[in-house]
């Protein structure tokens, strides 16, 4: 029987935190490589501070994405992130030769098919998204308005 099996699973995060002059803002990367942050005020009665974003455009710092820099601009409208634009991104592979060749002709190609598959884990790119998060976090930190709850 399977009764002796115990599944122990644990998710830990190496949090990427930046203390900003407007207060503590922690940008916690979720597993999809995006910053998840509160963009609306909490309505629950608690002693904690809440924060929202002030409308406007905010340019994040330049972050090193190894093969180049990433810099983003966050656009806040209605207190929420309405757009994120790239001001800089890795596009020059340094000493690599010009890349215009096709894949070897015997390699199979296909159109990708989006799935909601039942999988144990997901493998996805994070290389540039780490720098993306860093630049976006610094942009959002400028937009934050900290409001104290009563």
């Amino acid at each position, binding site marked *: 029987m399977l009764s002796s*099996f*115990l*599944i*122990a*699973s*644990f*998710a*830990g995060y*190496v*949090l*990427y935190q930046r203390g900003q002059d407007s207060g503590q803002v922690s940008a916690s*990367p*979720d*597993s999809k*490589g*995006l910053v998840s942050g509160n963009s609306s005020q909490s309505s629950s009665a608690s002693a904690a501070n809440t924060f929202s974003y002030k409308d406007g455009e905010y340019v994040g710092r330049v972050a*090193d994405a*190894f*093969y180049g*820099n990433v810099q983003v601009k966050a656009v806040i409208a209605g207190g929420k992130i309405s757009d994120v*634009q*790239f*001001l800089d*991104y*890795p*596009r020059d*592979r*340094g*000493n*690599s030769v010009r*890349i215009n*060749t*096709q*894949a*070897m002709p*015997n*390699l*199979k*190609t*296909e*159109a*990708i098919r*989006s*799935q*909601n*598959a039942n*999988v*144990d*884990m*997901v*493998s*996805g*790119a*994070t*290389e*540039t*998204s*780490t720098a*993306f*998060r860093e630049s976006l976090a610094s942009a959002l930190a400028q937009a934050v308005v900290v409001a104290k709850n009563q």
Partner: protein
Amino acid sequence: MGMPVEVEIVGYKADEKIFDAVFGYFTEVDERFSTYKKDSEISKINSGEIAPEGWSSDMKKIFTLCEETKKDTGGYFDIVSRSGKFDPSGIVKGWAIWNAAEILKNFGFENFFVNAGGDIEARGKNSRGEYWSAGIRNPFDLDKTVKTVVLKNQGIATSGTYLRGQHIYNPFKKDEPIIEILSLTVVGENVYEADRFATPAFAMGREGINFIEKIDGLEGYMIDKDGVATMTSGFEKYVRNGA
């Protein structure tokens, strides 16, 4: 490095102490190798505060592995970043995940996976008694996957970016071609091998999949900016049910 770490262990002996050991190890790696931390050993090396004689043995080991990978990839893997600083994160990640897996193996576990930032080492089987399955993230829809790979004591690493043509503009060259490929996933005998080749292969653009094709023991799946995927000739044997 600043990335999420996920560990799942199948076994009745797993307790908090085990997870503490693994996450503690990743914290230690981060504190040594993170270029985002001013006090890390790598940052001090880059600022000149630590001379080569003062490098830790792990640091020396990583630099040696980086040199090997640089040779194996004809220079495409190079830990000198564009800003002129050392950044070995392209190899540290796979190396650290593999070490973490060995920590669990030394505790006596045979069925688990270690996932750090989307690079994964999988050992044994899941709680349903099947080999671990890994979805390849859809670069166009981050909540979905496009392919399911079954890992039989193997590693998988995906290098890439979510930058897409329609969201990018170059204010100075609006017609300049945008990044050609969005992600390159490599499956190998372990996550260290998969990771150290996935990083430079991605840097090669479309050529990257050819590069992986030529290396014994590695299979790859590349997705371009148009949503067209190219796979190495042996890749499909790892795909679940033709999906």
